[in-house]
């Protein structure tokens, strides 16, 4: 029996637009297992980003319960959420969101700084992480001196550096070309599998869903369909071997 690390119970998020109420997330109940790679797939406006924001505590649900690691996210105040994110959660954004004043190494160090890891240890861990994403020779470059793919590598290193239980990725490959997309996905999946981390990826890109254990289709704030991915790949190399087309059909 796999351990359920995230539990969503009847969550709802309603936005008011003038007099009109719009349910961006409408009564969704979902569970995510430890070590599971899960894709939230949907068109824009389907509520997939809102759902991610709710699970990660960036937004409060109008109704429902969100339990991560036995803790009620929806009941936490901002400081508790900050502490919670420090310990259990990593984030990867579409637009990388690195701090321009800091070098690649310092960007990766940042979560450890907030977590009060001693200076020497955090530098070692950050360097190790940069090595894992293949950027150790760019450690002292500023984000502006790195390509998009390299910036996303730094961002991935930052998300994984504190060894979080759950990593959220919001359109992580949205700004990247196809080749780089596969490279990034390979990297993220490899890192997540290594430490049995749960990963929730929001995307509108079907190709990415090939990496997922489970693909959740969202439409109009509801779960439309959930598919277990039997032919899950862990690297784009398998994709070429099996022929991407077959894989896509099954998905």
């Amino acid at each position, binding site marked *: 029996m796999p351990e359920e690390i995230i539990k969503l119970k009847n969550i709802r998020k309603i936005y008011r637009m003038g007099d009109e109420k719009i349910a961006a997330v409408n009564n969704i109940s979902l569970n995510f297992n430890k070590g599971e790679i899960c894709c939230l797939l949907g068109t824009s406006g389907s509520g997939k980003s809102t759902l991610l*924001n709710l699970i*990660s505590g*960036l*937004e409060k649900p109008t109704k429902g319960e969100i339990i991560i690691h036995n803790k009620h996210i929806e009941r936490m105040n*901002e*400081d508790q959420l*900050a*502490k919670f*994110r*420090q310990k259990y959660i*990593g*984030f990867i*954004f579409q*637009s990388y*969101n*690195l*701090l*321009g*004043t*800091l070098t690649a190494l310092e960007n990766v160090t*940042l*979560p450890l*700084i*907030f*977590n*009060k890891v001693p*200076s020497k240890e955090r530098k070692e861990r950050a360097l190790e992480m940069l090595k894992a994403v293949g950027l150790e020779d760019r450690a002292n470059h500023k984000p502006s001196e790195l390509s998009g793919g390299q910036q996303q590598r730094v961002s991935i290193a*930052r998300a994984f550096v*504190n060894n979080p239980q759950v990593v959220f990725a919001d359109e992580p490959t949205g700004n990247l070309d196809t080749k780089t997309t596969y490279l990034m996905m390979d990297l993220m999946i490899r890192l997540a599998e290594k430490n049995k981390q749960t990963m929730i990826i929001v995307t509108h890109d079907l190709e990415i869903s090939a990496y997922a254990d489970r693909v959740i289709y969202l439409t109009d704030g509801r779960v439309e369909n959930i598919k277990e991915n039997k032919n899950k790949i862990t690297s784009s190399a398998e994709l070429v071997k099996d022929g991407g087309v077959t894989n896509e059909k099954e998905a």
Partner: protein
Amino acid sequence: MSSFDMISMAIRNLWKRKLRTFLTVLGVVIGTASIVVMISVGIGMNEGYKEQLSQMGSLNVITVNTPWEGDTNSNNQNAVLDTKTIESIRNIPGVEIVTPVLDGWLKLVDGRYVTDISVTGILPEAMDALGYKLVSGRSLQEGDGLDMVLGAEVANNFYNPKQSWQYRYDGSNKIEINVEEDRFKITYDQAYGQNDADKSIKGKNVNIVGVLDPMGSDSWNCIMPLNELESINAESAKAQKASVSSSDGSSAKKGTYQMVKLRVGDLKNVSTVQDTIKEMGFETYSLMESLNAMQETSKMLQLVLGAIGAISLLVAAIGITNTMVMSIYERTREIGVMKVIGATLSDIKRLFLTEAAFIGFLGGTLGAVLGFIASKIINIVGINLGQSSNLCVIPSWLVILSILFATIIGILAGYFPARRAMKLSALSAIRTE
């Protein structure tokens, strides 16, 4: 987030916007420097007063008088300076030494020549403590007998009593005498040496040990041990009684005095000691009292000067707030990202407060240095214009206080922007493209 990380990150953020940081710091520099200069002018003024007054005598000395008999306001009509009272004055905390003060009018004799002197009798061991300054010789010391310290002008006022009955101030009967080598006598007989003098009254040999500085003391006043003056006065009274059968009551009961002087060890305690003695029903006087009155008047001026400086620092504080608010607009996204990856509310707040405090600290430090240089220049200009003492005085506490003050101003100015940064929603912050 540790303080060290906080500070290094804050400095880095400020460094990124060098010009803006520099301009904001410049505002604080000018504000702090003007406060430092203004306050130092005020302190310089007070120091100047102190110097002026201390030339007139010691600031530590209090003079105590028995109340004037007609003074109905005096709360203690039977306040008497007797041995018991003097003992209780000596026991007031802070009092170093107390001496009764006795006056006498005597003639100083040098062979054929005489001069009129007023003599103050004090405990010889108290002389140094009372702040008498000498031009030559030594002060009276414990164990001195018929020894005397002359007033500065006394030696210049000798005359021949057979020719005139007093010293003429036009100098027409001036006699040159040698203080160091001549032998002197003193006598209560005002007619001594005159043709009709009572030859039975002999003077007493007196040893001149020193001469007082003309600055800050009565030029015709000599100092001698209290007990010697007391016995001379007693002889004088006895002689008077023999000739005139009435007592003028000037020499009061033995062991009571009209005046007492005392020294307080620490300047800070002078006013308290003085108040205590006033409560005992005596009239008191000290240079400290005059100094306090002078400083009270200068306080108003200092307040105005300080306010001018404070206004410029206020403007600088608004500059800090403005800079920080702008910085938050620019860094909205950055703040959002930091929140998402685990910065707590207090981390964000402290980061911005640290930046504001650093601007204040830097401005305060540079401002103190600038103020220091400015006041040195003012002093040099002042001395060239004929000022005897420094116009500005900057004590070390002022430097430390101004840096501290500027830092606190920075923190206060940064408080509102920091709260604003703290309250930014992480989600809307990272959405800002």
